[in-house]
């Protein structure tokens, strides 16, 4: 009763192929966008924006990147953290070499550097697959992480040994650096995420996305159907690394603001993004968002939410509990809903569509 497709006729192929075929879905997505763009910066507190929304958006972008590789193309990658790092360091080098160009341009462009590195490390994917490939991507993770520490040129020989984010402006408003306000950073980040999600949605719904999914479902059969495996897999690596790279640049410039850089791109970060993809749902864009929101807010909830309702919890214990809960929840989710939160979302929509009848 909440919404029905009855009466909504599709009279052209274009309408039939659309991503949101139902009017109510389109209204829903517009409402969500309106809340994200207008209501959140107006009404949310600085704390909510900086420690909930910004991490969520950064991780959502990274999760989309990994989902393209793992969910859509079926190649497991444990090198996400390193590819994010490539984006961050590329963006830093670019903006210090050419300070005149707007930082948003460089954040996007740094993704291409990450994509190039991703293609290099994706080359073995034709010969090896499955867990062997996962280990091969770990090689990327450790090698690149070593580069970030050992090559001082990457961080401009800073004494701190890390990226120091300079102040950059847009229309006179500071969007990076110490003087930038959380709202501005949030809006810039949100625009980038929405734009890139739109592109990703078009990619995965089109010819390229179909060839990725064919490779995922059975690569030999896909090859027989005329899909060239190596270019398809390498393209998946490139696009995936592009998204991860942009996420890394956003993370460093719009969230962390420098410092902690060496530790930000370690192997744990790769694992966390992989959790997001798995819990959110493999091969689903909405799942990337749900998974990222779930995993990135869980520690915050445990740290600030639980003491707020009166249960005392020390910082160390909260951290241990986060580990236990994340671990237990991963196992729980895998058993109860292996298709992730995206599947729950689908079920909820279906229920709303047929309500009050069960089917």
């Amino acid at each position, binding site marked *: 009763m909440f919404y029905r497709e009855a009466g909504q006729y599709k009279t052209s192929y274009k309408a039939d192929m659309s991503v949101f075929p139902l009017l109510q879905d389109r209204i829903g997505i517009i409402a969500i966008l309106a809340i994200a763009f207008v209501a959140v910066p107006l009404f949310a507190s600085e704390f909510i924006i900086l420690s909930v929304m910004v991490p969520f958006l950064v991780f959502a972008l990274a999760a989309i990147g990994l989902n393209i590789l793992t969910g859509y193309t079926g190649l497991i990658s444990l090198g996400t953290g390193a590819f994010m790092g490539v984006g961050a360091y590329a963006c830093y080098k670019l903006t210090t070499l050419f300070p005149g160009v707007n930082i948003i341009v460089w954040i996007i462009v740094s993704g291409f550097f990450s994509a190039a590195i991703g293609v290099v490390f994706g080359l073995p994917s034709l010969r090896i697959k499955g867990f062997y490939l996962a280990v091969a991507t770990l*090689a990327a993770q450790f090698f690149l992480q070593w580069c970030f520490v050992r090559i001082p040129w990457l961080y401009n020989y800073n004494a701190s040994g890390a990226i120091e984010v300079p102040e950059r402006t847009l229309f006179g408003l500071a969007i990076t650096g110490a003087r930038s306000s959380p709202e501005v950073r949030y809006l810039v980040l949100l625009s980038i995420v929405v734009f890139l999600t739109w592109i990703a949605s078009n990619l995965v719904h089109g010819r390229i996305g179909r060839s990725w999914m064919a490779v995922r479902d059975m690569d030999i059969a896909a090859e027989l159907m005329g899909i060239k495996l190596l270019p398809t897999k390498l393209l998946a690596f490139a696009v995936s690394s592009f998204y991860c790279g942009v996420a890394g640049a956003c993370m460093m410039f719009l969230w962390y603001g420098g410092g902690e850089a060496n530790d930000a791109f370690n192997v744990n970060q790769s694992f966390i993004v992989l959790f997001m993809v798995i819990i959110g749902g*493999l091969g689903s864009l909405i799942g990337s968002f749900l998974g990222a929101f779930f995993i990135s807010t869980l520690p915050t909830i445990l740290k600030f939410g639980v003491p707020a309702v009166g249960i005392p919890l020390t910082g160390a214990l909260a951290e241990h509990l986060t580990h236990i809960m*994340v*671990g237990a929840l*991963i*196992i729980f989710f*895998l*058993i109860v809903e292996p298709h992730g939160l995206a599947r729950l979302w689908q079920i909820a929509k279906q229920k709303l569509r047929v309500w009050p009848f069960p089917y």
Partner: protein
Amino acid sequence: MAYRIFIGPFVEMVTIPDLFVQTVWEGFVGGVLYALIALGFVLIFKASGVFNFAQGIMVVFAGLTLVGVYEKFAAFGFSGMLAAYAALVVALAVMFALAVAVERVVLRPLVNQPDIILFMATFGLTYLLIGLGETIFGGSPKVMIAAQLGLPSGSIDLAILGGRVSLQMLDIAAAVIAIVMIAVLAFFFQYTRIGRALRAVADSHKAALSVGISLNQIWIIVWFTAGIVALITGIMWGARSDVSFGLQTIALKALPVLILGGFTSVPGAIVGGLIIGIGEKIGEFYWGPLFGNGIESWLAYVIALAFLMFRPQGLFGDKIIERI
């Protein structure tokens, strides 16, 4: 530069042979310990097709339990060798309980799911064990009770090749224990009833089930065996440094060992472990300074990756045949 990469290190190896022998020995000991972790992986992968990411944390958890329980005993005034072995028994019991719990809670509900789901489940297990270990035993590093367990200490110096090579007694003990354990495992797999059942399960779950082998039982046995291997690895590795959560990163070092040796081969794990252990020590010692040191962190992976380009299934791995 070319000289320093292609000629210099070899000249150094030949002219100062005792240093070379020392480096190889250290690599050998490291390799044995990598091989032990890889062995835990292989056991589980063979019998259940699960890529057990949690093997590394199982090593830490087993070591922590042993030391933690011993500390509890010592607090009651019960210390010394007897207490150490009592703690060892408790740690074994905990590993058994863990094996049963994993089988009941994780594996049984996830039967027939795709590989990646099972792989992710062991990720969950990893985080769970990290959290549990930190909550129960605290996050700070602990000293392994090597002396109380009767492990030898000190070192012996050998005068060979015109120089002196120093061998830690503990490392020798580690190598001996590892060799004994591998021999026992090989015997267990080859000649006992349960061992044959394990191999049957490894070949085909369905066929094993149809001849009356209980999968659940086999899984518990395999995880328990992996737990014992983890405990021994934890003791040996913990005695060399401390028992701390930093140790779990050595599990990531065992992954290149695995792909080098093949996921399903016990000899592969051992040979791969030795190649990686010795290779990375030599690489770090002779070539590391040229690249600003620390290349140990990725050298193993690059060796394994280069190797995979020529033989994708690893040294002893089963040949992958694909059909439509």
